[in-house]
């Protein structure tokens, strides 16, 4: 019975490993994060093959109930992973803001160049706002109405 349980957990970890490899191959997971996950699945496989490792580690640091060490390690890992993701998300947000601004500035420059009136022909623009208006009117429809603040 005991052996079966360990075998089952090994099979689970191994299939997790295989799924990871497939995800990386399909470029669904960037290598940068994938390495972390691969390391985790390697540890999972090792522990399911040699469960005594946990017992020995528990004895070494003086944890009375070995499985609770497993929970602790798991929790710490998840916390670190979450922190890592939040940091990555903050960096992405910063980049999105920068890109959105750069794009908008370039677009504005483009449109004013198209109009041939980079700000100097006030009258012409007031009389013939069609180009400007048209472009922006089209755009405003495309914009997600419930646009969320990043």
């Amino acid at each position, binding site marked *: 019975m005991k052996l079966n349980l360990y075998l089952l957990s090994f099979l689970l970890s191994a299939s997790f490993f295989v799924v990871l490899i497939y995800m990386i191959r399909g470029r669904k997971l960037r290598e940068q994060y994938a390495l972390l996950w691969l390391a985790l699945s390697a540890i999972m496989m090792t522990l399911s093959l040699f469960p005594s490792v946990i017992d020995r580690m528990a004895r070494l640091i003086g944890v009375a109930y070995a499985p609770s060490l497993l929970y602790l390690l798991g929790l710490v890992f998840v916390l670190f992973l979450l922190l890592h993701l939040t940091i990555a998300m903050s960096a992405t947000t910063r980049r*999105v*803001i920068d890109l*959105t*601004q750069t*794009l*908008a*500035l370039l*677009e*504005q420059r483009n449109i*004013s160049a198209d109009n041939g009136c*980079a*700000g*100097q022909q*006030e009258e012409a*623009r*007031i009389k013939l*706002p069609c180009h*400007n*208006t048209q472009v*922006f*009117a089209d*755009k*405003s429809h495309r*914009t*997600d*109405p*419930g*646009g*969320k*603040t*990043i």
Partner: protein
Amino acid sequence: MKQAELLIIVPAFNEAEGIRGVLADIRSRIPDADIVVVNDGSADATAAESAAAGAAVITLSCNLGIGGAVQTGYRYAAERGYRLAAQMDGDGQHLPEEMGRMRLALARSGADMVVGSRFVERRGFQSSRARRMGIALLAGLLTRLLGREVTDPTSGFRLCGPRAIALFASDYPTDYPEVEALVEMDNAGLRCVEVPVVMRERRTGTSSISPFKSVYYMCKVTVAVLIAKTRKKKWSVRYEA
């Protein structure tokens, strides 16, 4: 093409209803300034209305919030080499006729930024009591942190000189940026002064800060300000271009 010395940055999010009147008002009161509207991903005709009023329009493809929008304006000002850049709300709260005094104050004081404050002379629209209390708390915090009197840290009616434009173009806080920006300026060794102004109650649209959000606003701004304060590097050499 003769470019003006002063650029008026008007961040706008769904202000189609009133933006044309606000821009016309600015244009007639400050005829020697260029106006740029930063349309922060509005779902209405804000961009078309602004273009029709003769302003340059920058449309952000998704909503970045006031900080991201205002920074776009400062980036525009820095790129085009404007010497002065002012930010004014798109809802008509800020009176363009005050700009003359603000420019004078900037020139006379030699500061890098002038902030229009409602609470120096306490004239005009003074906001609701709850909001005044919140602002007073933040003002007290800032006065202590910066070591000089600040009465209206949340005012978005500001006029910047070249150094402040360069600073904000490269780095501007997000979410509720006004208060944090003051600390950021102080960290960079830039100076800002307040000038008493009269503000109007907004004519159209609704405030971005609902009662529910105001508690979050106070917490976020307080934490952000305190953290921003710790960024000041007293010991390191600052490289300036």
